[in-house]
């Protein structure tokens, strides 16, 4: 098979369960042009170099475009204005400096270690309650019963989004998360659905922000929405809305995968499962290795603002550039025995949270949630076993994770 269609194989849902052999073939050429004009970067060294390159832009999201409605005022006046606003105020993962830095700075001030650490007890309580709910059953679906509800509850709590509204935004959130998938970007109908979901969730957030301004609560959204004591607000309302949506969506879509991938990987390596159960102190090592071995986000797309020479290859100006983090995480030039899951390795400088200036803001929160979840699961589930391996996967190739993870258990202690 010619190399220039290898990435199409990555996108093919048939390869979702095990894309790693394709990654290995992609790595043979650190920078490879695909037939669709995109460039895939798959080695650790090349990605490391590119994430610090100012010619790689994150403003790669196609402009928002709402579907025709037949109503000329909507089609020729209102919707184009809305599209322009949405495009100009994209979430900060799709923005470049200096705007990106301003927005990120505001969020990071509030997304503090203190705030994250304060959630620890809340996470422990939620984890215990979710496991308790599994009592009396001999089969559970980890995604539905555990790894989806946990991060949703936590990010809702942190942001100050009422958890009872979760059924409302669940489908919006999963539609918006597809913005990371190249297939969606090329598919007109899917882009229309994304625009509709964005409209709906924006309306919801706008109302919530108004409410937070009226009656502030000790949560992140109230802090971001609060007018500063002097001077103008740190971010305008359009940016505030897109930032709030980003935090809500990114706050759980990714962590679901990390926890589920973690459980799947540990059950595939029963020896590591036993070691974690015997020694919860191993959890940080297990999680870092997980982020390398089965990261929740496999790639991100950027755009080349100029011609870039790298590793003997040329990335042409304007090309979409796919940074295949999950392939770099298995690069034998960087990691010894990369396809082995080994929490004891000392060298684990992974791209599990991306890298460079877009490095995951939620990394500390994801680590805490996953650590508490995996430790509790390992101690409380009796004799868990995978009901099917591989499990069915969600459609996303970038946000990659099991749709369901059926586990047979001998009880809960």
């Amino acid at each position, binding site marked *: 098979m010619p190399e220039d269609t290898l990435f199409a194989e990555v996108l093919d849902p048939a390869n979702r369960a095990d894309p790693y052999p394709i990654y290995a073939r992609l790595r043979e050429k650190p920078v490879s042009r695909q037939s669709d004009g995109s460039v895939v970067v798959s080695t650790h060294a090349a990605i490391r*170099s590119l994430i*610090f*390159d*100012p*010619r*790689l*832009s994150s*403003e790669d999201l196609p402009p928002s475009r709402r579907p025709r409605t037949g109503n000329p005022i909507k089609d020729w006046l209102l919707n184009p204005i809305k599209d322009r606003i949405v495009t100009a105020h994209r979430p900060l993962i799709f923005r*470049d*400096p*200096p705007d990106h830095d301003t927005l990120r700075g505001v969020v990071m001030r509030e997304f503090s270690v203190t705030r994250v650490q304060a959630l620890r007890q809340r996470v422990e309580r939620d984890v215990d309650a979710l496991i308790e709910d599994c009592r009396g059953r001999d089969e559970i679906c980890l995604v539905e019963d555990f790894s989806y509800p946990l991060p949703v509850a936590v990010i809702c709590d942190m942001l100050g989004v009422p958890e009872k509204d979760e059924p409302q935004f669940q489908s919006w959130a999963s539609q918006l998360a597809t913005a990371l998938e190249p297939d969606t970007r090329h598919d007109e109908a899917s882009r229309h659905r994304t625009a509709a979901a964005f409209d709906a969730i924006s309306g919801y957030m706008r109302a919530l922000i108004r409410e937070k301004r009226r009656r502030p609560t000790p949560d992140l959204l109230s802090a971001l929405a609060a007018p500063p004591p002097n001077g103008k607000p740190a971010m305008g309302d359009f940016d505030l809305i897109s930032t709030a949506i980003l935090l809500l969506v990114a706050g759980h879509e990714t962590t679901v995968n990390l926890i589920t991938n973690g459980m799947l990987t540990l059950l595939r390596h029963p020896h590591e499962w036993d070691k974690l159960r015997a020694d919860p102190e191993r959890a940080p090592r297990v999680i870092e290795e997980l982020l390398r071995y089965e990261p929740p986000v496999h790639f991100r797309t950027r755009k080349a*603002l*100029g*011609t870039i020479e790298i590793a003997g290859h040329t990335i042409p*100006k304007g090309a979409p550039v796919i940074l295949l983090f999950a392939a770099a995480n298995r690069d034998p030039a960087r990691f010894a025995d990369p396809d082995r899951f080994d929490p004891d390795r000392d060298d684990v400088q992974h791209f599990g949270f991306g890298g*460079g*200036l877009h490095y995951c803001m939620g990394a500390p929160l994801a680590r805490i949630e996953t650590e508490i979840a995996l430790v509790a699961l390992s101690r409380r589930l009796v004799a868990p076993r995978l009901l099917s391996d591989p499990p069915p996967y969600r459609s996303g190739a970038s946000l990659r994770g099991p749709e369901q993870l059926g586990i047979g258990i001998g009880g809960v202690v």
Partner: protein
Amino acid sequence: MSGVDTPGMIVVGASLAGLHGAEALRLNGYRGRITIVGDEPHRPYDRPPLSKHVLSGELAADATELPQRADLDARWMLGQAVIGLDRHAHTIGLADGAVLAYDKLLVTTGARARPWPVESGGTLGNIFTLRGRDDAARLRAALVAGPSRILIVGAGLIGCEAASCCRSLGLPVTLIDPNLTPLARSLGTWVGGVIADCLKDAGVTYRPNAQVLRFEGDATGRVVRAHLADEHVVEADLVIVALGAVRETGWLKAAGLMADASGLTCDAACRTLDADGAPCPDIYAAGDVARWPISLYGDRLISVEHWGNAVAQGGHAARNMLAPADDQRPYDHLPAFWSSQFGINIKAVGLSEGADTVAIVHGSRASRRFLAVYGREGRSISAVSFDQARWLPAYAEAIRIGGAFPPIRDASDQDRIVSGLPGFPPPRRVSGSQVSGSQVSGSHVSRSDEARHA
């Protein structure tokens, strides 16, 4: 060489480079004897905090000891100065008369602060230099005593960092330097002007274009004022002399090596050269003391007084010490340094020497947040960032491959490339042995080579 009954390896200089060299010997599998000799009584310590956190009191001087990455199992001979080397006998001599034999020698004796000339008041009380841990402890104690005015001579990296610290302690500071701006030798006056603005904002009395001729003391022998070349007088009861460093090569005077106060000359493999220019297979050098040909800049001989070089070269020299003669790898290093002063994090890569243009490629000088690239004959040779280090690795890579100037266009976060003349002062006419009080060296590269040919 690896047997326990042989003399083994001696590292002269219990420094950052020496420690990394010794560690690299072990990490590369050397099981024989390692002896580390140091003239200070301390285990190897980290210098960068001395002119920052130690002066400001955030860190005690004795809390700077370096961690060890490997079980060295070394014989430490601390507080023992080395006074001589006999290459033919394979021995070094210590100040207490002891003679130690070696199989191979790694010289990491570093440099010492250039002192103020004795005849111009150099022995007066309350005049300090800042190089070692004990210097920093003494200076810190003197700062705590609350001097009424501090005079800093030399606006290089150390002088500016010291000025920044003293101002943060609320102490009045006068800074005197012969160049037009601070950091003129390392960054040029175009970029150095930004630090001049910082000095002003921080309330430092800054006197560019000025030279101190001599210090005057009171009846008790303590410094009270400085007399300048322009006949002005500056009152000061504490003086920090920050005029750069001279290499610790005095003990090699009779060794028959190519060594003087500007360094111990090596080949590309870190092997020292004898007086005829032939490499000595048993004597290596690394860190501040070593002068070596840097291939990226046309094999110019340089010595680099920076942390990263000490680490990398110490390790590289050790690797070559263990390798056979036909596998001596050349040392390939892109010099880099960082500094923090006036709340700004400065990072630089490459050698800006000889630059004919400098361009701001991100940010602006007015915002004091920028990345500047230096060019020479159309190629990018170095870069510096002020609170804007995020893209520096991309520029470092461009410099490493000798990319065009400016190397990166069509970048995000890049408005308009503004360029100017870097404004480097003319090379100093000084060789290391002729110390002149008016010479300022805050710069990171020895320029004695150019000076000799000037």
